[in-house]
């Protein structure tokens, strides 16, 4: 059992919660990665609504697959087709769906705090699949899973999170989760990408990737929102790649066993060069795989497990 009812942010998770999620995800490896029949009845008869108020491909398909693997009944509602775009308030949308009697909401939203708002309008369990610049806890769990699988542990590792920290819910949830598990985090990015208050994360920050590249176990490259940033907070794609991009010269300086992560989708040639994305240190596709496992684990622990007496 997790100590929380909903999965809204990573601050609320204890080290024990995170370990439970990662261990449960590991137990699902055989279901998802080894069996021909990739399905267990853990959430049979439970109803899950995927409410994606902002476009998403990988997170949405990852959740949908995880739901199918667990035998849950699910429907997906998108921002462009939902009544939210017709001017309906979030409260009305949630109360409407809630009236149909569902067990869980998976929510992706453009606005921070949306999952919290949903909990005020339903008794169903809510998993935050990314809310604005705030949090993306299921991304953090799949990242931790990937890193732990490679190193066998999390405590004592050094992780550099590189890129657009200020606009990143990935950083906002990954940094605290890593700290909770005893890893060290350093935030790397130009001053215009730094968070308003780095002390809140309790992490050092630096403007120089070259200063930390040979000292860290994980280089975690964040996606840069090109369309939003060019000329506004960074001068150009070319300059960003030169100062902060992960190219082979920098990869060669990494520690022998160090790995590269990226939450996707990548801008090849900007924050990460094409050959780097495909090199032996890259764990980017492992992260995608871990996404299904950890999301199965989160839904199972919050909705199934001891909550309904069904075991995996």
């Amino acid at each position, binding site marked *: 059992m997790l100590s929380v009812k909903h999965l*809204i*942010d990573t*601050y609320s998770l204890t080290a024990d919660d995170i370990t439970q999620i990662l261990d449960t995800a590991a137990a699902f490896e055989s279901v998802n990665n080894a069996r021909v029949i990739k399905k267990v009845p853990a959430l049979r008869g439970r109803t899950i609504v995927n409410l994606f108020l902002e476009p998403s491909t990988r997170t949405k398909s990852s959740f949908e697959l995880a739901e199918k693997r667990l035998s849950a009944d699910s429907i997906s509602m998108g921002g462009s087709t939902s009544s939210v775009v017709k001017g309906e*308030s*979030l*409260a009305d949308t949630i109360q409407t769906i809630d009236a149909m009697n569902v067990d869980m909401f998976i929510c992706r*939203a453009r*606005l*921070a*705090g*949306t999952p*919290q*708002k949903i909990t005020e309008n339903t008794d169903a369990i809510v998993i935050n699949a990314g*809310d*604005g*610049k*705030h*949090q993306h806890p299921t991304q953090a769990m799949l990242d931790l899973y990937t890193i732990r699988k490679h190193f066998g542990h999390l405590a004592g590792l050094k992780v550099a999170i590189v890129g657009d920290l200020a606009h990143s*819910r990935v950083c*906002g949830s990954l940094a605290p989760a890593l700290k909770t598990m005893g890893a060290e985090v350093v935030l790397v990015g130009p001053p215009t990408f730094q*968070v*308003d*208050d*780095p*002390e*809140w*994360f309790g992490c050092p920050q630096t403007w120089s990737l070259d200063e930390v590249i040979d000292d860290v176990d994980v280089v975690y490259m964040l996606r840069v929102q090109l369309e939003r940033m060019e000329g506004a907070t960074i001068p150009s794609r070319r300059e960003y790649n030169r100062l902060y991009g992960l190219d082979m010269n920098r990869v060669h300086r990494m520690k022998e066993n160090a790995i590269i992560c990226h939450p996707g989708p990548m801008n090849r040639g900007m924050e990460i060069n094409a050959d780097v994305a495909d090199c032996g240190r890259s764990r980017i596709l492992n992260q995608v795989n871990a996404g299904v496992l950890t999301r199965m684990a989160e839904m199972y622990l919050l909705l199934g497990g001891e909550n309904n007496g069904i075991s995996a």
Partner: protein
Amino acid sequence: MAFLLKGAHAVDPQVGLDKVVDVLIDGEDIVEVAESIDAPEAEVVDARGKYLVPGLVDMHVHFRDPGFEYKEDIASGCRAATHGGFTDVATMPNTDPVTDTGTGVRYQIDRGRAADLCHVRPIGALTRGEKGEALAEIGDMVLEGACAFSDDGHGVQSAGMMRTAMGYVSQFDRVAIAHCEVESLTTHGVINEGRASTRLGMFGWPALGEELEIYRDIELCRLTGCPLHIAHISTKKGLDLVKAAKAEGLPVTCEVTPHHIFLNEDDVTAEYNTNLKMNPPLRLKSDMEALREGIVDGSIDCIVTDHAPHAKHEKDCEWEIAFFGTIGLETSLPLMLNNMVRSGEMSWARLVEVMAINPRSVLRLKPVKIEKGSKADLTLIDPEKEITVSEDYFESKSKNSAFLGMNLVGVATDVFVDGKRTLVDGQVA
């Protein structure tokens, strides 16, 4: 109609009054203040145990009328003001259409008179449509009764436009009220920049966005000679700029809201309570404390509410799209009494200065004094009566209060406006 207020503790530093007296009101005026008065024809109001002060003035409210009457209208706003103990309110011009003509000013005054509860004192826009591009008909508005000028809701972005507007206002005996916000710095900001914006993952509204424009407008005050009043000041640095201007003798005053002195950014939690979304935002605890000191030491002139009614659906939504502001008329006095006067942090005399005397002075209104011959605009306060701030408590059409759920001790029980009793034992007449 005559009223005899018996045994009230009257406080009015303008006339050196701080003792228990009887006050006789006849018609629109105070006709006698004495230790003991007999007036057989007058209706006696037992005021023993209560404080009597010159009528309270809130010089910064939004009554949304015309244009947004579903949030508030002048009649409902006046009911809220009366319930909160006020005899005068100054209404901000960000209505629809913007109150930027004499006609608009006259409309609000007429609606206020029709409501017949308190004095409605319209503030006219500095620029047409509050767009910051062209002068509004300021002289026309003065002639129709505008008490001050402001583009509240926006800073005037162009320094040149603000210079022109203040220069033009300087020919009339009126202040320019500045909502200080450099929009190229505040951009999409919805919460104080720093810990709160990081913690909750939203765009920050930096203190500098306010302070830079306070500095600019103080210098424009020096240049044009136009008296300047800084609206809803929210940071220590901003207050330091005002203090320095005052020390130089510049005609600069400022106001603060109860929410900026009793709440701070730490009160905004992962619950995302949108009633705490303000413009300017709730700042640091250290700012809050500096502002409280500023009230006591005299550097802050007025308490105002920035009463900002919004309908339920405009607050019951995600923080980033929720409207800015809290209602305040009905909690302002109880908060001041409960949090500052009861504790001895501020005196009754100082309370009267910041809530009655100074706002009248800033708005160039005739002083109201507890003495023979003055207009009978008076507020009677029960310092021991407790209220619970609930949605049901409010006369305002909107219920978006940052203070819901609080229990507060001290509240107005009776209000007299031009000798008419508009609040009777806590009930709006």
